[in-house]
């Protein structure tokens, strides 16, 4: 295993207005690392935006005194994002309706986790100093 280094380490209040700033920062880091352009402009942006908004809205319930931490670690083979909230967590493996099924296409909600899983190579959730959602994208 090669060396890994922290490329991003930020903490934001539980307010969705901060999401775009973090996404732009993460996208810039991704480009500096020379990941394929679409991985930066689509995969990282959308999957990370989903994880952060989930942390703010569901994890922290938009509580003003709670924060979300976002950390990116670069490895030789991948970039790994941890999004940490102060909530109890959720069951990543729970059965959820397929948002691409014909009967669900017109549902307004239910695409967030689906997009995270489709746009990242690996999505994990665990407790470590908070509720962590870990997104891994191989180079």
């Amino acid at each position, binding site marked *: 295993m090669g060396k890994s280094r922290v490329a991003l380490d930020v903490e934001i209040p539980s307010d*969705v*207005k901060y*999401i*775009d700033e973090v*996404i732009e920062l993460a996208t810039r880091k991704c480009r500096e690392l020379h990941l394929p352009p*679409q991985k930066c*402009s*689509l995969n990282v*942006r*959308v999957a990370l*935006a*989903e994880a952060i*908004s989930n942390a703010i*809205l569901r994890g922290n319930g938009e509580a003003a005194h709670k924060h979300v931490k976002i950390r990116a670690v670069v490895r030789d083979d991948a970039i790994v994002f941890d999004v940490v909230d102060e909530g109890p967590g959720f069951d990543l493996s729970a059965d959820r309706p397929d*948002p*691409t099924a014909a009967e669900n*296409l*017109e*549902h*307004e*909600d239910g*695409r*967030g986790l*689906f*997009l995270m899983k*489709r*746009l990242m190579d690996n999505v994990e959730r665990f407790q470590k100093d908070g509720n962590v959602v870990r997104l891994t994208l191989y180079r």
Partner: protein
Amino acid sequence: MSFAISKQGEVTVVDVEGQLIVGNRQELKQKVLDELEKGEKKFLIDFSQTGYIDSSGLGVLVSLSKKIREQGGELRLANLNDDLQTLFELTKLDTLFQISDTRERALESF
């Protein structure tokens, strides 16, 4: 991030400038619903100046599509870049919306 509304004949055109995400989706929804309330029926959302869309942005488009249809109107989308096209294909929303390559083609499709 903003939404510019203009008229091209009978069509209400909305330009999405920047992102369409959880932080601004309600603004887009309200602007389109206001036009619908005024009696507008034909809507085109142009994404030529759009960076990315998250799941809540997609959800608002789905919701607006239903509301416009319920009022006897039509919604078209135009100018999806490669990333947005991929996003619509992943979610199969490319099968739900009528999507045109250009604004002109979308306007002609009404």
